[in-house]
């Protein structure tokens, strides 16, 4: 079958059918829309035709751009993008047509939604969607966006672009939305336990909340304090419920870094309260993970707890008398001997850098 006929067939599918999903398939179909496979509103693009059709579409696209044939450019770019979501020039051309009024922005929200089922990791594709939402803010519907993000994350977890898209939406939320989102997301973090981006997302919501302008500063401060102390407890619970997850330990570091940086905003009696935060964290580590009598802790957890302990030491250094680095050093060395794991030698380097005043803490 020649490329022109394939193009006309694909154009027909786009204009008459309501596509909900697309993917590459190994073999050509022989139904109404051959060589494409079309089942229950899902489009299958057979591998063997891809080189031929993409070569044809590129030539066609170049010609159409010269002639400024907007109607045909609309179809041609859709065909290109269904097959190759990274074809940035085609996305650009569609932005031009949206600006000119030839394409409705709503249409491309549907198109990007469809293309994401095949290309969930295409940064150009995600940006096209963001560009539309930035330029036409009334089109932002959180629920729609969240569904699309969830679908993309399900297709490819730890999807960097989809998480960034979710963070982008936070810019448009008010305080109530943000608090709601924090709580809702805490409730479903178990689905993303090993996805560090999900944890980072929680921190960004907290960040936005802390700097949110408020008319009654004192009441707001209390509200945030309450949220934060619940959140700290929540994270501890996840550590216990999902043992051995590096991501939660990393989040402990991010969260404590955040608390230290914002202590003046977060606490009323800042020095006292930050000391109490520190004491509680250290006590938790010593009791749960770095305790010889507690044989339940896994080796990996001991390692992660030692890392977090050093992290807290460094952050707390400015606040009180110098933490006891020498004891921690012995703890790390004991761990290394016991586990035969030398991979955290760098921690000893960091400690000696601190002890030699090589770094500013």
């Amino acid at each position, binding site marked *: 079958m020649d490329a022109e006929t394939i193009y006309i067939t694909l154009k027909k599918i786009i204009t008459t059918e309501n596509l909900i999903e697309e993917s590459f398939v190994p073999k050509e179909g022989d139904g109404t829309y051959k060589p494409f496979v079309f089942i229950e509103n899902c489009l299958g693009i057979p*591998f063997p035709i*891809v*080189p031929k059709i*993409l*070569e044809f579409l*590129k030539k066609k*696209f*170049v010609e159409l751009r010269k002639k400024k044939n907007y109607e045909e450019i609309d179809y041609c770019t859709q065909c290109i993008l269904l*097959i*190759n979501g*990274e*074809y*940035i*020039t085609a996305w*650009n051309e569609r*932005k031009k047509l949206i600006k000119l009024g030839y394409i409705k922005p709503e249409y491309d929200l549907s198109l990007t939604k469809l293309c994401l089922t095949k290309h969930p990791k295409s*940064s150009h594709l995600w*940006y096209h969607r*963001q*560009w539309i939402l930035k330029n036409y803010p009334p089109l932002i519907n959180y629920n729609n966006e969240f569904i699309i993000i969830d679908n993309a994350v399900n297709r490819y977890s*730890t999807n*960097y672009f989809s*998480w*960034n898209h979710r*963070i982008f939406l936070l810019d448009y939320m008010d305080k109530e939305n943000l608090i709601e989102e924090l709580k809702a997301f805490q409730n479903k973090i178990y689905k993303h336990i*090993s*996805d*560090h*981006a999900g944890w*980072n997302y929680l921190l*960004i919501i907290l*960040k936005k909340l802390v700097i949110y302008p408020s008319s009654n500063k004192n009441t707001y401060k209390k509200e945030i304090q309450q949220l934060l102390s619940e959140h700290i407890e929540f994270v501890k619970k996840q550590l216990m419920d999902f043992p051995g*997850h*590096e*991501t939660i330990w*990393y989040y402990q*570091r*991010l969260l404590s*870094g*955040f608390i230290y*940086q914002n202590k003046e905003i977060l606490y009323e009696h800042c020095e006292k309260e930050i000391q109490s935060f520190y004491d509680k964290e250290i006590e938790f580590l010593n009791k749960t993970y770095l305790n010889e009598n507690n044989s339940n802790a896994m080796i990996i957890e001991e390692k992660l707890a030692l*890392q977090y302990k050093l992290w807290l030491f460094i952050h707390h250094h400015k606040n009180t008398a110098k933490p006891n680095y020498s004891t921690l050093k012995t703890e790390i060395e004991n761990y290394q001997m016991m586990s035969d794991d030398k*991979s955290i*030698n*760098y*921690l000893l*380097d*960091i400690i000696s*850098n601190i002890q030699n005043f090589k*770094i500013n803490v």
Partner: protein
Amino acid sequence: MSEIKVEQFPVKLETEKHLKYLKELNNHQDELEYWLTEALRLNGIYWGVTAACILKHPEIYDFKEMTKFILSCQNEDGGFGGCTDHDSHLLYTLSAIQVLVICDTLSEVDKDKVVEYVSKLQNPDGSFSGDEWGEVDTRFSYCALSCLKMLHRLDAVDVPKAVEYIKKCMNFDGGFGSIESAESHSGQIFCCVGALAIVDRLDVVDADKLGWWLAERQLPNGGLNGRPEKLEDVCYSWWVLSSLSIIDRIHWINKEKLINFILSCQDADTGGFSDRPGDMVDVFHTLFGVTGLSLLGYPNLDKIDPVYCMPVSAIERLNIKTRTYNQI
């Protein structure tokens, strides 16, 4: 540092096979991958030619032809598209300049137009858009600064502002993300640390903290991942390793184990490297397999500059200070 020897490892580097693979990349114009990667052809050329240089056989490519093709991708606005008849973007403009530098044919391009294109993309907050449509990403900061440095025209942009923006993208873990608030990611860290090295502002980085995070990327099998709890991947041997090298903490990972992992990702039949053992090879992972080995001091390879990801010899030709850092 002890010298790395070929005999230390159960598998050796299949240099001949890789060169054959790289040489034949352009002969597959009827294949799926060739057309799916058309929009980023200039990146592909840069990956291929740099790998060939590090393997010490740049002559497998015709530099004259290559230059001609690169120049045919330059647009009116001064930027380069990913292929002929594609819109300009910083991602491809950098690759174009890198290839021209490697081919020593930079004199054939209208440099002022390139500088004009790049500098126009800087935003008031110091960040860079990838193209006229405004997507912002620290990758683009790296592209712009690397490009301008190679053209000796850093004066065309506001460098302190550019640094300020990169600083905003630094996270509590010492790493960097693609934009403010985005999660730390090894690829983005390379871009940010590289950009800061280019403008001589590594003071912005907390080397111990960042090095700590980067060192944690090594998994028990020796490979490196790009973010916590993700799988190892050969391309991260580059992103993580070059960053560690720039901040002088390369000794925080186990070199022998990493070399072993990289070598296990070669396809001994077809040549080329894949992300993980047994997967399909591609030119992207082939470059980063080879450059990772070079940075680790594997024998019989040319030196790679960790900041520019280009052969040290090409950077030296530009009279730019090359920091081979602590290559072994």
